[in-house]
């Protein structure tokens, strides 16, 4: 991506920068690097990054909230998986815990979870998770009328003009993804990994459960297997991606290639003037599973870019050092505008 300039109307609204926190350390570094808000999850299947050693217990959540609040920032809690019909109480208990903690907003997808929050904690601010997959103004309006959501995170399947349509007519705030690893983008509906492992991101909070992942060094390179299913084989010096089915390479009609999705990172820095002009309320950085160093560096770049764009939107240019810094942390080491500039719908 090269530096470019854009024209935009003067003084657009400054979007809030929402950054990932997989640990208390990542939370504090994100705040120090300029995040307006961080999002985190509890140590269980109620959030879509349910990995061993990641996320917050209640004491850590309290400490993180106190740290953010003392600096005038917000903490949002991701409670964005779908409740297990056999034991939905765990999800409701997590809502109760969030209310007790005094979280600034809850990010939910499941209507049962949203209804529990609405009925038992009417003061709790609700954001509609990307996992709810609401792609139209009408769908978002349904969630506002029924559950009182105040913000919707848009799925990464929309083009820029579709985002604009939703944004111009929405009665709630709109949040979009700005940077981070992409998935096959059927958010809230992906059960692909269930085929191999019996678990999916929307139920167990993981798409490739680590217990099912095996890396095997062999003569032909390194094989990545998911519960025994070969999903990719890398040459000795070939870059790797996350071991997910959607980013695997498969033989299709005699050609071995990425059948569903390439391992790339979304990077929308160059779209910042347009996004701000549309009145986007918040920009989300993906990566609760990444290290605090990633969180700090990516937050720092986006803080500078948003501040620059807000100060002089018509003269905004993506700085080469921002692109280089973000490129360093990208999965697959390549950037894409994702669906924002896809020619097809």
């Amino acid at each position, binding site marked *: 991506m090269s530096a470019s300039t854009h024209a935009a109307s003067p003084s657009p609204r400054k979007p809030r920068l929402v950054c990932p926190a*997989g*640990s*208390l*350390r*990542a939370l504090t570094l994100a705040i120090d690097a300029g995040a307006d808000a961080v999002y985190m999850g509890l140590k269980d299947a109620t959030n879509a990054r349910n*990995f*061993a*050693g*990641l996320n917050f217990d209640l004491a850590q959540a309290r400490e993180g909230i106190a740290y953010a609040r003392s600096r005038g920032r917000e903490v949002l809690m991701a409670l964005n998986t779908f409740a297990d019909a056999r034991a939905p109480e765990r999800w409701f208990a997590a809502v109760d815990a969030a209310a007790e903690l005094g979280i600034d907003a809850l990010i939910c997808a499941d209507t049962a979870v949203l209804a529990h929050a609405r009925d038992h904690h009417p003061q709790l601010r609700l954001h509609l998770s990307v996992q709810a997959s609401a792609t139209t103004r009408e769908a978002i309006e349904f969630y506002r009328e029924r559950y009182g959501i105040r913000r919707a995170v848009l799925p990464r399947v929309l083009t820029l003009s579709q985002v604009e349509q939703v944004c111009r007519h929405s009665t709630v705030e709109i949040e979009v993804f700005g940077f981070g690893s992409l998935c096959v983008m059927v958010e809230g509906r992906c059960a692909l990994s269930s085929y191999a492992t019996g678990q999916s991101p929307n139920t167990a909070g993981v798409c490739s*459960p*680590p*217990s099912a*992942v*095996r*890396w*095997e*060094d062999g003569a032909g390179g*390194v094989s990545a297997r998911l519960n025994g299913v070969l999903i990719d084989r*890398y040459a*000795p*010096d*070939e*870059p*790797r*991606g*996350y*071991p997910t089915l959607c980013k695997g390479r498969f033989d299709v009609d005699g050609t071995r290639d990425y059948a569903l999705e390439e*391992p790339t990172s979304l990077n929308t820095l160059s779209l910042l003037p347009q996004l701000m002009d549309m009145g986007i309320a918040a920009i989300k950085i993906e990566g609760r*599973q*990444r*290290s*605090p*160093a*990633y969180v700090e*560096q990516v937050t*720092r*770049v986006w*803080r*500078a870019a948003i501040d620059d764009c807000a100060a002089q939107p018509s003269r905004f240019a993506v700085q080469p*050092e*921002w692109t*280089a*810094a973000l490129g*360093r*942390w990208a*999965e*697959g*080491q390549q950037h894409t505008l994702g669906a924002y500039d896809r020619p097809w719908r």
Partner: protein
Amino acid sequence: MTTASPTSSLPALPPPPAALRRLITRLPIQPPSLLLAAALNRTLRPRLPVDAAAALAGHTVEIEVRDFGVRLRLALRDGRFRSAPDHGPVTLRIAADAASYLRLLRGDEDADRLFFERALVMEGDTEYGLLLKNTLDAIGPLLHWPSPPR
């Protein structure tokens, strides 16, 4: 704005000449393993959360410093890091160059990024490896010198 470039502040770590490296590879792994265990008992053990220590205990991890030809084996047993025997299966094997380990220890690096670039290789129990990575990430830098420019 400045973005720290961790690679620009790396200490000079010239790997040993090939002949010396071959010699190091043949040396017993116990001395360096004991040294690292002692260092971790001082720097990491006190900061290890109880639940993480319980989950990590009882498994052997092999660590290879590729450019130096050094290999170590460690296990957390009875509440302390200890050198593990140079035979038998390991739960996890990690291999990287010294500079990558240093950046990780200083909290300047992202293990996923190193993994994508094949600068860090992990074999064995992926779940155990992820627990170890996330636990170390949450604890923060174990090494505070030399720090990168901010």
